[in-house]
């Protein structure tokens, strides 16, 4: 067996905010009819979270369930459990029209923590990141500079950023630049 590694193998950077690659994260993308009770039950069982509404993310410990589009969810689970979780979903949804795919190694995950988290992201994405507009529990799919990315900000004020693995280094460099000491804007705190 090959030894799985994440895109940047836990690289980190200390600026006015701390940027770290989160290492191996299990991710399952699920497409299907999100209004279907069976689909809801299968994903909720897989992550142990509640079902997110439109543009919401539900987090429970290491697991999370994110609403990605009207017919797509992203389930975050521990890396080692992905195969079992997909098998459970496949069993629960047999005969339904759906798709559950392991995308753990096709994505990269970053955590941004410390002070000025909102500012780091606001520099890169065309999104209103004021605390009133972008609240914990919301997920936003948008772009970071020139590539697509999704992020949410947790109750503890740290942000989770997900992007495609092929652009992991680009996104890490962007976040490093945006968090560079001395580049604080001081607008969003």
């Amino acid at each position, binding site marked *: 067996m090959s030894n799985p590694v994440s895109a940047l193998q836990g690289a980190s950077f200390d600026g006015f905010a701390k940027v770290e690659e989160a290492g191996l994260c299990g991710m399952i993308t699920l497409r299907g009819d999100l209004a279907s009770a069976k689909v809801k039950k299968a994903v909720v069982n897989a992550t142990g979270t509640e079902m997110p509404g*439109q543009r919401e993310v539900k987090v429970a410990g290491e697991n999370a369930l994110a609403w990605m*589009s009207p017919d797509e969810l992203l389930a975050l689970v521990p890396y080692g459990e992905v195969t079992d979780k997909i098998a459970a979903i496949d069993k629960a949804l047999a005969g339904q029209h759906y798709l559950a795919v392991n995308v753990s190694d096709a994505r990269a995950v970053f955590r941004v923590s410390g002070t000025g988290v909102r500012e780091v992201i606001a520099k890169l994405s*065309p999104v209103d990141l004021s605390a009133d507009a972008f609240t914990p529990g919301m997920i*936003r*799919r*948008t772009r970071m500079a020139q590539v697509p990315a999704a992020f949410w900000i947790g109750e503890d004020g740290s942000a989770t950023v997900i992007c495609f693995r092929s652009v992991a280094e680009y996104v890490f460099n962007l976040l490093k630049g945006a968090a560079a000491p001395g580049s604080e804007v001081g607008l969003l705190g």
Partner: protein
Amino acid sequence: MLILTCPCCGVTGEETEFHAGGEAHIKRFGPGSSEDEFHGYLFTKENAKGVHFERWRHNNGCGKWFHAARCTVTLEVFGTYSAQTYEPPQEIKDKISAKRPGWSWREFA
């Protein structure tokens, strides 16, 4: 800069989050059509000064296609609506009529 609201995921974002997909409500003429029809389908596009209908894709967001009605002169966006339709919904037409009385665009008015 256009500010569009995606009717599929409800996000209001600026232009760079979306991708323009050309003119809306085009009827496709493929195999079996006459050369004139095929020529018309490929090349005769509206180049409106004023009210215009376009297809857009939320390519950095939910990835869905939708329609937008906007003014090419002022860049005002009258509204966005589902891609699963052959013509603009009455609600959008009413909004345009309120702001641009007497507008017409191809067979719609």
